[in-house]
């Protein structure tokens, strides 16, 4: 499959035996995977399995200890500060805690999405005196996430779910090629989780974005993402299309062992 030149061209991320160690702990252990343009996939796995580290590497926010990371046809280590800035500007990153700048209006937070594409002077101008077209564009992305009426509201006065929507709107305003979302629904209730996932996957499909999510909820991941990658102790446990993922795969992924199990027994006993 990978011999097909068309597929080769469409590969956005190509990781070969990527490992990440922090002092004595291993966050990622020889991970290899490829992601093609326009794919929608979820990385699932228990806490501490290396999901966040993997996403940070894909975002160009971190270099792994060893292994090859190819992003858009260029090795991560070959990115210069300038091209790295371009890479980040083309990558939307949504966090579990929305990470909006407190005290700013929703419109300002959305317009900050293009910082990576503007000079300091230009960003001051758009921060203090947003043009009509910029505000219209901000309104448009807010409309897409369903809270356009909050355009001039203070960001920190919105609810958690609304703030997550603003974060998504900011990522859309950024007009990226890839959307990475690190546990975007971890702090939301089930109904809002479903809404946010629906929104993310729909938007990605509409705009042809590559979408990589990390999450805990397997049922939701299977429902919304055609491809699942199971991560366990920093290793790829499975990498299948959602329909092929079996109950055994999932049980394996979340089983407790060693010390974890002993603690588990102590709680039960």
């Amino acid at each position, binding site marked *: 499959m990978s011999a097909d030149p068309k597929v080769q061209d469409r590969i956005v991320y190509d990781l070969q035996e990527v490992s990440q160690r922090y002092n004595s702990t291993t966050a990622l252990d020889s991970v290899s995977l490829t992601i093609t343009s326009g794919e929608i996939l979820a990385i699932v796995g228990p806490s501490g399995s290396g999901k966040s580290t993997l996403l940070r590497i894909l*975002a*160009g*926010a*971190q*270099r792994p200890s060893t292994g090859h990371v190819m992003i858009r046809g260029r090795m991560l280590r070959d990115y210069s*500060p300038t091209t*790295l*800035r*371009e*890479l*980040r*500007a083309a*990558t*939307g*990153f949504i*966090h579990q*805690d929305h*990470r*909006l*700048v*407190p*005290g*700013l209006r929703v419109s*300002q937070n959305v317009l*900050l*999405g293009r*910082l*990576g*594409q503007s000079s*300091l002077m230009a*960003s*001051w101008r758009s*921060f203090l005196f947003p043009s009509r077209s910029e505000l219209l564009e901000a309104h448009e992305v807010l409309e897409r996430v369903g809270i356009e009426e909050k355009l001039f509201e203070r960001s920190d006065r919105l609810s958690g779910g609304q703030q997550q929507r603003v*974060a998504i709107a*900011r*990522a859309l305003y*950024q007009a990226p090629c890839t959307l990475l979302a690190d546990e975007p629904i971890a702090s939301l209730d089930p109904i809002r989780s479903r809404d946010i996932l629906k929104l993310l996957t729909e938007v990605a499909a509409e705009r042809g974005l590559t979408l990589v999510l990390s999450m805990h909820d397997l049922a939701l991941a299977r429902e919304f993402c055609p491809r699942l990658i199971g991560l366990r102790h920093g290793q790829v446990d499975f990498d299948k299309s959602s329909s092929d993922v079996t109950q055994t795969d999932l049980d394996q992924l979340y089983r407790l062992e060693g010390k974890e199990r002993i603690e588990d027994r102590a709680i039960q006993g």
Partner: protein
Amino acid sequence: MRSKAELKGKPFPVGIRGWVLISAILVGLWAWLYLGLSPRQLLPGDASSIGRFLAAALSPALDSQDPGLGEAVRYIVLQNALHGLGRTVLFAAASLLLSILGGFVLGFLATSTWWAGDTITSRGPLRRLLRQVFGPTVSATAKILATLLRSVHELFWALIFLAAFGSGPLTGVLALALPFAGTLGKIYAEMLEESPSAPSKALRDLGATRLQVFFFGRLPAAFPDMMAYTLYRFECALRSSAVLGFFGYPTIGYFLKLSFENLYYSEVWTYLYGLFLLIFLVDAWSGTLRRRLAT
């Protein structure tokens, strides 16, 4: 579990807070003894002078108590009070503007967090030098400068400037502005460093440069606190500006001192009442404003 017998012999543990409190009280008491302080020293040598001063509180003067001037210039004390209070406010406002500028520059340079940048883009030897040597040096220098400026009280600055440049209004403004810039710089830097870093990291992830992260991530997050603190410093600047009058600058302190020296106590009380009123009004105004900023 310790047995009761075991607990019996043990003294009650005092702890660090207890020791600090005890030693503070002991040092204070020792200082009183050393200075030979005694309440008897409050008994006035000239009881009638105190009596006259206190009695004057009930009859503040609007006209001059100077028999030569008398009623020749009507309401001269009231005019002086308004003029002096106006100048007090103007001196405070002019100095604070200068110290906000200075404090912001100092705070910006002293904020060490933004010099750090992120490791992935700071890999070349030059960038590493910038991140590990130049940045921390600038930050430490700015912090030391801020400390030096504010460790000298504004009254000392006023004495120095008077000796060097005479009593022009600019020297008075500078005397206030320098130590205030030091204080603001230190506090601004602390507020900027302690402002939540997650929003800044998110901006970094979408390609913002170091300066963009500072101006659009750190600064807005710390801005309400910085504003509230600056308002509080305006109250302090007013009090200092009033006292600056003792050195000849035309603030309320100048008139207060003159009337005091002439023993025109009713005039003194007019000026004091004016000052009380001004401070009270500004406190109330800035208090309300600060509460609104906090939400």
